[in-house]
């Protein structure tokens, strides 16, 4: 095989798929107007749930491939968290940020509880991870998901409703959109994708899991990725490629350019800042603007009492 392809399969694609799915889920979630500061916690819960799920077929002899089961369990648990967060924040006029951050800490705990037993009992997880070449299919699947979601948001009624609810939930409700239902759809879909990304993070990229994983802050980097791409599913593709590549080639950058490790760690964050500055000062700004009701507590005045 050509060496460049090896490099892409081993280094670029696993990181790309993870970042793409997590930031895609985050984008969908925030399009509905709910500020998502729980991203890093949900991401970590996804990794723990995936580990647990991947072991289930082995323990119970279920005829399903272990990594696929891992992905299913991770998306399911993340979607439940999404259901909780979006419904609570739509029903009650409370701070999105405070709920998100508390949920983050809570889901760090859930993630440890889910993954720790497997980590101790089985140690290495190479046996239940995706094969090396599978990352090609996973990339294609995630690209398809991205394109479909883009069309879903831009072309369908539900997609339009998600955007409307993010811009102004009151007007949307007046036009007959059911704010609660729409936000739940966006919330579950978004968090499920974040869980999917978390599952691939350990089953296809790292192939190991540790309690301390949540201190890496990759969820937050995906947060920055999503914003650097203006929450646009298609623009996210090159941006996550760039970020995934930057994160995963740090060691190469260090050795090739002869720079210290911490300078190399700086580069993805500087790149994110630079991208945001570039699009904010150009015409792209209007396309990439945040939903205008992002993070605003929603309270529907009752007229009938």
């Amino acid at each position, binding site marked *: 095989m050509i060496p460049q392809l090896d490099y892409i399969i081993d280094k670029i694609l696993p990181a790309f798929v993870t970042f793409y799915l997590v930031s895609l889920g985050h984008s969908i979630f925030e399009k509905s107007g709910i*500020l998502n500061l729980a991203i890093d916690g949900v991401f970590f819960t996804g990794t723990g749930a995936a580990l647990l799920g991947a072991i289930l077929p082995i323990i119970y002899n279920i005829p399903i491939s272990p990594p696929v089961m891992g992905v299913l369990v991770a998306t399911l648990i993340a979607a439940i968290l999404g259901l909780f967060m979006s419904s*609570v924040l739509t*029903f*009650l*006029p*409370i*701070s999105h*940020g*405070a*709920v998100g*951050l*508390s*949920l*983050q*800490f*809570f*889901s*760090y*705990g*859930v993630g*440890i*509880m889910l993954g*720790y*037993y497997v980590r*101790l*009992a089985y140690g290495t997880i190479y046996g239940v991870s995706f094969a090396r070449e599978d990352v090609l299919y996973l990339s294609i699947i995630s690209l398809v998901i991205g394109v479909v979601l883009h069309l879903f948001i831009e072309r369908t009624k539900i997609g339009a409703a998600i955007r409307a609810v993010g811009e102004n939930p009151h007007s949307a409700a007046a036009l007959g959109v059911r704010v609660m239902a729409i936000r739940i759809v966006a919330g579950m879909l978004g968090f499920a994708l974040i869980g999917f990304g978390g599952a691939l993070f350990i089953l296809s990229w790292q192939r190991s899991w540790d*309690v301390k994983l949540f*201190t890496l*802050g990759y969820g*937050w980097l995906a*947060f*920055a990725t999503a*914003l*650097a791409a203006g929450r646009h599913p298609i623009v996210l593709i090159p941006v996550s490629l760039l970020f995934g590549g930057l994160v995963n080639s740090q060691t190469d950058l260090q050795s090739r350019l002869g720079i*210290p490790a*911490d*300078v190399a*760690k*700086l580069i993805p*964050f*500087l790149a*994110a*800042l630079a991208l*945001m*500055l570039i699009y*904010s*000062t150009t015409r792209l*700004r209007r396309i990439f603007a*945040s939903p205008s009701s992002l*993070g605003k507590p929603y*309270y*529907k*005045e*009752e007229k*009938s*009492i």
Partner: protein
Amino acid sequence: MRIVLVRRKKPLKYGGLVVALLSLLSGIFVFTIFAWLIGVNPYPVVETIVTTFIFPGVVKDFIILTLLGYALLIAFKGALWNIGAEGQMHMAFLVSIYITLIVFFTTEKSLPLYISIGVILLSIVAAVAAGALWGGLAGVIKAYAGVDEVPVTLILNYIAYFIGDILVYGPFRGKYVYGYARTDLIPDPYKLSIPVQRQLSGNALIDTVTGYMAEFATYAVWLVALILVLIFTYWLLNKSNIGLRIKILGSNPDYLVSLGYDVRKTMVLTFMLSGAIAGLTAALYYHGSLYRIEYPLEYNTASYGYLAILVAWLSMLDVYLVPLSAYIVSAVILGSQRVSSLPSVREAFTRLQLGGAEMAFKLLMFGSILLAYSILRFIQDYELKVVS
């Protein structure tokens, strides 16, 4: 029949306290279910959590979190979501370290008082300036380039961490650290904490009271700073022209334009004030308790910068409620640490082959109480009604 949410005509009486108690109860309830599920006797768990609220060890976190809570309160009043207190603190640390460990480094055990005070003051002023500049940088990017401030401050946190990492690994690495990547300890004359010796009487009540007094005496300088910051914040937000501008910025920026003020400059100023208090807190924390910084830097502050966001939000941006929510958050942190090291909890984790995962317990408890608190805040201004 359905349940609807109605705004109260008047906020609930003693709402802050009611919400705090109710959310503690429900958070602890949720958490004890977890404990019970894995076979831990809930009684010592609940007892530990409750007693942490009258535990002297809370004082340190309480003071730091209140100070940072005020730093963020100012920015949040202007609807500027400053997630960057961590970064602002770290830039301040670096400046304080440069002054105390590089420029005025000494191996003397004691120096004339005026030199000590002079160096400490210089370090604090420089830290305030550094925090203000790092906050101001976020403000400039937000105001003049129009980039959303949440990701900007978040990214600036990481940039500050890594700049610090580079410095601690390189020029700031100490001479007496046995190869560890960390700075030297701060020289004794520059320490701000007052060592207090106390004797235990054996009586729990008396020991708790003397414990609080000892903690407050140890951090007396912090306490003075806390009172000054409280007065300053109150004056700024309620009596000053700048505070009025910040509040208008938060509610209706267009109005600020028609009043003839520069919205952009107000944004930068708000961020600088917020960063300045974060920088002050960092200097106090470094001189009074931290004494050195270590590689990697993000572990130095125990996520104070992020916890302070919770403090500010949970206070509902009320100047008087900031200390209350800071106290609750710090008691919950400490309580969760104490619970996860209870013998019964450790034993249950070992039995379940989860030995070493006590951290999960800490995070679950901390998360469920804070989640309950964030959600139940609505009771103060709204009520649930069942209508047919």
